[in-house]
């Protein structure tokens, strides 16, 4: 029994253990695609005014496809892991596919059980547990709000 299991048992809080899954901590500590990209076509900085998390999202869109994607920023494990996983998942997808995923992801965070089953979300499903922590939902959505801002319907 490792420490994390012990903490879980001591606290007996399944929702919390569900929130801080190893995959999330791993993305927090070793974020993927936290770098510059070439041929940046879109970039935006957004923050959560009330907690101060900040994400820069960078896209290189070519022929309606996300040829490359990266992020920078600072914040909590949830916002950074969400950004990191998002970049992994969206790279190579068409903009339309990306926006569809964004919709499914948002539904999952708002507690939709069907969305939490959607295989196309891949690792991102590890963030389903955030729906139990309403104040943290905005952390998980920060990178996705950047995406909407850059290529969403109102962009």
């Amino acid at each position, binding site marked *: 029994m*490792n*420490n*994390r299991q*012990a*903490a*879980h048992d*001591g*606290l007996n*809080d399944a*929702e*919390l*253990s569900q*929130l*801080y899954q*190893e995959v999330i*901590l791993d993305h*927090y*500590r070793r974020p993927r695609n936290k770098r510059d990209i070439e041929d940046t076509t879109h970039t935006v900085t957004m923050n959560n005014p*009330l*907690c*101060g*998390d*900040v994400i820069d999202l960078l896209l290189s869109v070519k022929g309606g496809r996300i040829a490359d994607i990266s992020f920078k920023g*600072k*914040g*909590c*494990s*949830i916002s950074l892991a969400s950004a990191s996983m998002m970049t992994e998942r969206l790279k190579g997808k068409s903009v339309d596919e990306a926006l569809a995923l964004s919709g499914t992801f948002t539904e999952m965070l708002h507690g939709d059980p069907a969305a939490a089953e959607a295989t196309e979300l891949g690792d991102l499903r590890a963030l389903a547990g955030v729906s139990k*922590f309403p*104040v*943290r939902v905005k*952390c998980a959505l920060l990178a996705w709000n950047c995406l909407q801002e850059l290529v969403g319907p109102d962009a």
Partner: protein
Amino acid sequence: MNTTPALDVDRVRADFPILNREVHGRPLVYLDSAASSQKPTQVIRAMSEYFEQHHSNVHRGAHELSVEATDAYEHARATLAGFIGAREPAELVFTRGTTESINLVAYAWGSGLERGDEIVLTVMEHHSNIVPWQLLAERSGVRLRFAGLTAAGRLDVDHLASLIGPSTRLVGLTHVSNSLGITNPVAEIAGLAHDVGALCLVDGAQAVPHMPVDVGALGCDFYAFSAHKMCGPTGVGALWARQAILEAMPPFQGGGEMISEVKLEGSVWAPVPHKFEAGTPPIAEAVGFGVAADYITALGFEAISAHEADLTSYALNRLAGLDGFELFGPSEDRLGVLSFRYGDIHPHDLATILDRQGVAIRAGHHCNQPLMDYLGVDATARASLYLYTTRGEIDVLVDALLVARDLFGGFE
């Protein structure tokens, strides 16, 4: 021989109904008093009783309830004026809180400033003592200058002194920092301001709850504070200023209560403090504010300070024993508002994990973004103590931090 009557914390806690609460199935451990303190029954009851027995609008009525409401409101003013050592109740203006008090000064007194004038602040100021001056700078072109910190995490008084000069009109600083827990040498700085003919404004939001304040001894010209941080209700606070300064200032907001005569062509202002209290004031809230001051006075600042000092050193000792615990600000000679980071756990994650164990701390910039930039962090966790906090609660905090570390699988 120590004659300080010790604080009977159990009895104090019995006055605060919310401390019986559970959060996520655990007893509430409220360590967020620097954001807002909890309220004793005495204050809550005084407000209910005011509404149940005495309410009416104040100042303008000849009937009994109006007299009772006015007496209660003005009695609260006198109590609070006494609480901070004002010479006259008329020197105390009721506002919504510290923020409005400072905005009042920035608008009313600040309307006399012009391009070329300078205001000296510090990097540790709360946004409430920065943004009103930025807005004034936009209106009038005054220049803002900011004093930094020493390596030890205290105000760099030499740097501050070097910023004060013949163009300085105001030196504004916090009495106690809401992130670093340090108390600034206000009397010394008021003296530096007065040497060049400038005024000194003090943000007392974090001081009045914890220490006896005597505006006369401090020698400042404006003193701002909030009820909700000192056992009082939301919706009310105060601005103290020397009477001559208040009298010389133009009004801030216009409306009922603040006038002596209104004609279509122009109006004549009421005497202070009414000149600065436009509209129906927060009457029940002022009553609760006064009772909060009485509550604190009855416990006594000697006892409160001794209790808080004991808790603070106990907490710092226990927390220093945790690997990865990093405190911001000095560890000696400080109050019990403790900003920290713990390993590589982000403060928001810490706050969430602690919350699930019943422990309420704050995470973020604490309305101190410029200080955070100065310290090179985006956020800190902050645990803040008050007169109802116990050693046992500190122990729960420490255990909860260990759980957080374990949840994060230790630190890398």
